[in-house]
């Protein structure tokens, strides 16, 4: 195992992985713990990893697995973001208005939230997200679209006010 190589991968991806997990869990401490787990698995899997062109997708596949393991460990009930946790994330981010966004994200179905976050936070394309979430690119396209529609409705009440509400409240 090349520790320098692992350190370089950590440098390149840890912030995005942390933000992805923070949005997915709604909790900074959990996101830190999970991010640590992700890169521990990255280090362990480094010798077997060959497709360097898809490094980011590989890292996020691990991140998603770590997230799923957490789901299995603590159960869905433990994942439900409390208002307090949402506020915690928002205040730490110095953006009180992002409480609404975090709550809206938490209201999404799991498969829609993860596809949306892999697209918007990780910046992955549909073709890259598909294998990670075990779905076809078309399914990913629909999940992301449904997530966006739900977020608009959640943040604005309906499609029309969604635009206006997001101007004022979503940052």
């Amino acid at each position, binding site marked *: 195992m090349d520790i320098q190589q692992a350190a370089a991968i*950590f440098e390149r991806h840890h912030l995005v992985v942390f*933000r992805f997990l*923070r949005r997915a869990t709604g909790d900074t401490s959990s996101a830190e713990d999970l*991010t640590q787990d992700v890169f*521990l698995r990255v280090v362990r899997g480094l010798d077997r990893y060959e497709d360097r062109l898809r490094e980011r997708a590989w890292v996020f596949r691990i991140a998603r697995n770590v997230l799923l393991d957490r789901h299995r460990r603590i159960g869905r009930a433990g994942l439900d973001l409390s208002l307090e946790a949402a506020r915690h994330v928002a205040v730490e981010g110095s953006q009180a208005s*992002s409480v609404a966004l975090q709550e809206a994200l938490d209201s999404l179905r799991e498969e829609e939230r993860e596809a949306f976050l892999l697209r918007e936070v990780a910046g992955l394309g549909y073709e890259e997200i598909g294998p990670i979430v075990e779905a076809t690119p078309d399914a990913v396209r629909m999940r992301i679209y449904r997530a966006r529609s739900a977020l608009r409705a959640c943040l604005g009440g309906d*499609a*029309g006010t969604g635009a206006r509400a997001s101007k004022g409240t979503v940052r």
Partner: protein
Amino acid sequence: MAVLSALVDGEEVNDLALLAEALSVAEGRDAILDFVRLRAAVRADQSRPRAAFYEKVRSVLEAPSGRSAPRVLRRIAAAVVLVLATAGLVDLGWRLRDGGSAEQPPRPTRVLRFEPGVDWHANVR
């Protein structure tokens, strides 16, 4: 509106008629604006892990490589000791079986007996 969502993502849009239809209505154009705003809102998160996280990660990430070398060396050393101990015990066993002295000739492992008149004859040429 799914086609607009894909458009915002820079994904391939094959059905241009559907795209044109979606863009022709105000709702479609509003949707694009909202999708872009949502992206900006999500990506506005510039949070970073706390300092303690980095210290913990450093120790955890460096631990496997830091401990692996001594662990391998310990295993190799243990294997060498085991081989040497086994060889020593075997050698000691041989010595004890041979009477405890290395100067004595080894005991025969097989004894061949020849009886005169049976196995050999003195007058036969």
